[in-house]
């Protein structure tokens, strides 16, 4: 459960199981920082250490690309870049966050390359109804109590579908938070946006998800309008 709290030593970016910590920060993600290269004889991380994170990177890439072939391509590209720029990683800092920063930057770059007709930074100022077709029809919206009921029987495949249909900036933040388990600050450092923007995109992304899932449930007959008080 996400609301299980525990003490995390200062300076340790992640807990043993890789979950988020509020103690890690910009210093741990140093891909863009200039520094003296490490001697070649002392690699900052081993291949095995890097490959320990391949499952988390892959499931993140799956949501961002929506298909296994592109996800594999994105993860492979991420690792090849990480190995190529290995000397830029600060030994002892957060390798997992560093790899995810490379993956996020690569994904953002690819998305911008293939999306010519939309300025995604402006999405932060757009109402949710304009972002998600299911929200456009006010009559299709369910009250919160019905949304909660719908979520009780929701299928994993529906969650993945709704997540993949989120607009890109919201999807990236929701995936980095709720799939990969990064903190707000780590995400802000990773995708280089203000902390408040991360929070706004995360909260709005989850609201859009919740309503989309409730809408799936209504369409499938698991929840009816009459079930709402």
């Amino acid at each position: 459960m996400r609301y299980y709290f525990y003490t995390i030593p200062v300076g340790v970016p992640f807990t043993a199981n890789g979950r988020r910590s509020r103690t890690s920060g910009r210093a741990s993600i140093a891909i863009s920082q200039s520094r003296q290269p490490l001697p070649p004889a002392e690699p900052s991380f081993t291949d095995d250490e890097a490959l320990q994170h391949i499952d988390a990177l892959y499931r993140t890439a799956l949501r961002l690309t929506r298909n296994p072939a592109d996800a594999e391509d994105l993860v492979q590209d991420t690792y090849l870049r990480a190995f190529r720029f290995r000397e830029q990683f600060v030994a002892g800092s957060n390798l997992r966050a560093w790899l995810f920063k490379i993956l996020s930057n690569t994904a953002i770059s690819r998305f911008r390359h293939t999306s010519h007709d939309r300025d995604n930074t402006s999405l932060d100022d757009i109402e949710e109804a304009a972002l998600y077709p299911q929200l456009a029809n006010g009559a299709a919206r369910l009250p919160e109590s019905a949304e909660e009921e719908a979520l009780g029987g929701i299928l994993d495949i529906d969650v993945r579908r709704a997540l993949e249909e989120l607009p890109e900036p919201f999807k990236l933040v929701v995936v980095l938070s709720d799939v990969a388990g990064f903190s707000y600050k780590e995400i802000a450092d990773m995708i280089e946006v203000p902390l408040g923007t991360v929070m706004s995109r995360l909260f709005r992304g989850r609201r859009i998800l919740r309503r989309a899932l409730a809408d799936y449930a209504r369409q499938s007959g698991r929840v009816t309008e009459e079930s709402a008080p």
Partner: protein
Amino acid sequence: MNCTEVVTLLEQYVDRELSSEEIKEVQAHLDACPPCLTLFHFEASMPRLVHRACNESAPESLKQRILSQRS
């Protein structure tokens, strides 16, 4: 903390982004306020569902391909 204050902090509480002092205050309120506790469970459900639904493992062939292309 009153209900309004707790509600504004609830998502950050779910995400473990509050200070230890704020956590104590929110926990104390939730212990005493069933409506806010219900809302907390509602807010906590979405990230939990997403985490549960996204649990795929990378194909072994991908790992081998990465290692072979590295060298």
